């Protein structure tokens, strides 16, 4: 996902891990920037990453879905679309780039990542 031209902010356990927190990483949660062009890029990226590309929702479905999930060879990828429609501006503001090998990844601030985690992971 880091290498694909999709605009997203990494949140969840993977974001916290990249921020130096000691948390087990079970999957990758990414908040997607709203917008038609980005959704098209997301669809292409998910299709390339998914083990079963036929299960990736079509672009017109991505406009309405709250979360789109793909099972990849790296594990489960959850694309938080509704969260992007609601909180993109705020999350983007607090986020910063972290290098994963030679690919820069936009990662939510630890405060934002913890806040989302507390809200949705009881």
């Amino acid at each position, binding site marked *: 996902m*880091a290498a694909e031209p999709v605009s997203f902010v990494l949140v969840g356990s993977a974001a916290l891990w990249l921020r130096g927190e000691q948390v*087990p990483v079970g999957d990758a949660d990414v908040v997607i920037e709203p917008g038609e062009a980005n959704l098209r890029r997301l669809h292409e990226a998910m299709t390339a990453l998914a*083990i079963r590309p036929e299960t990736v929702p079509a672009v017109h479905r991505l406009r309405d879905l709250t979360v789109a999930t793909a099972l*990849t*060879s790296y594990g489960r990828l959850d694309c938080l679309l509704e969260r992007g429609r609601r909180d993109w501006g705020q999350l983007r503001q607090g986020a910063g780039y972290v290098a994963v*090998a*030679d*690919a820069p990844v936009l990662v939510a601030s630890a405060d934002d990542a913890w806040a989302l985690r507390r809200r949705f992971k009881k």
Partner: protein
Amino acid sequence: MGQRSGVGLVELAILENLDARRAWPGWRPARCLKVLAALEDDLGLARGYAYQVLIDMALPWKLRVPLVEGQGNFGGRGNDPPASPSYTEARLSPAGQIALAAERGQIAPVPIGLINGNTHRQGTRPPFRPAAVIDAIRQVLARPRLPAGQITDLVGPPDFITGCAVTGDLAALAAGQRTELGLQARVTVTDAAHVSARVAKAAVPGHRPRGITRDPGRPVIIVDNFPPYANPDDIAMSISKRGQEYAWHARHPELSALTGLPIKEVMDLTSRGDYWFTCLPANGTDPELLRDQLLKVHGVTIYVSVGLPRPLPAMIRTWTRTYQHEDVQASLSALENALASRQQ
């Protein structure tokens, strides 16, 4: 959950229905469709849901102690789904019959729930080795003050039936804490001659299997003993995908080196229920290095969240203390016999 067997309530309803139809071990099995229709009429259990549970109860790679014997296509571990319930049949397994007898109070309780766990249905309780659990209960019955550490040692680590390796904080699990276990397929570096011998051994008589490579000494990596809840077809697809070239590899060579797999070919050699495939390393690749990379592929290693309601020794002790006035030894022997009859 049935208190005297630890078997789930839906599972018990299915066992009751099979018993009512006289679908006993060695007897004529009942058509699954009829069982599901009756469960829907009597209990309001939707057929699709009940069928999933029924199938799980019969699958030998999911449960240490299968409660049902299935006949017909109950599906494979890959992408092949089970046949419609119109075409499948089921009957009680010997262990299923014992679970039912324990629930009815005809025999003393049996620890089937503790042995099977419920991680096969995304629960948090892992399975344990049947003989080890039975032995631990017997020891505690004989010596009620057996130290907790010894009980934990007797039961041993969680044991998943496919033979996958289990990693993680086993002490935390035994102490009743929530933790995460890694379930890892076996990834072995060997040579083409060894693979050819295994293929020939499993081949149908009269059928000549094709060779892996012309060079019998060429290093080959075998992947088998998959985690029980991973789909081998998906794992093969995952590995193939990681071996492909993508446009972004040129833009991010470091990331590409980190995530790509130098594989020439992946071959699915699954035969007669033995799920395994081979990876041929690309020329010039260190097979040991590739082995380590393969272990990081999702599916080759999966993580399951596990936890026990109480520390394991306390669970064993409570179980034995609760039922010590009954003839637990006899019911444990009956369960052992049922398991032995299945292995024959």
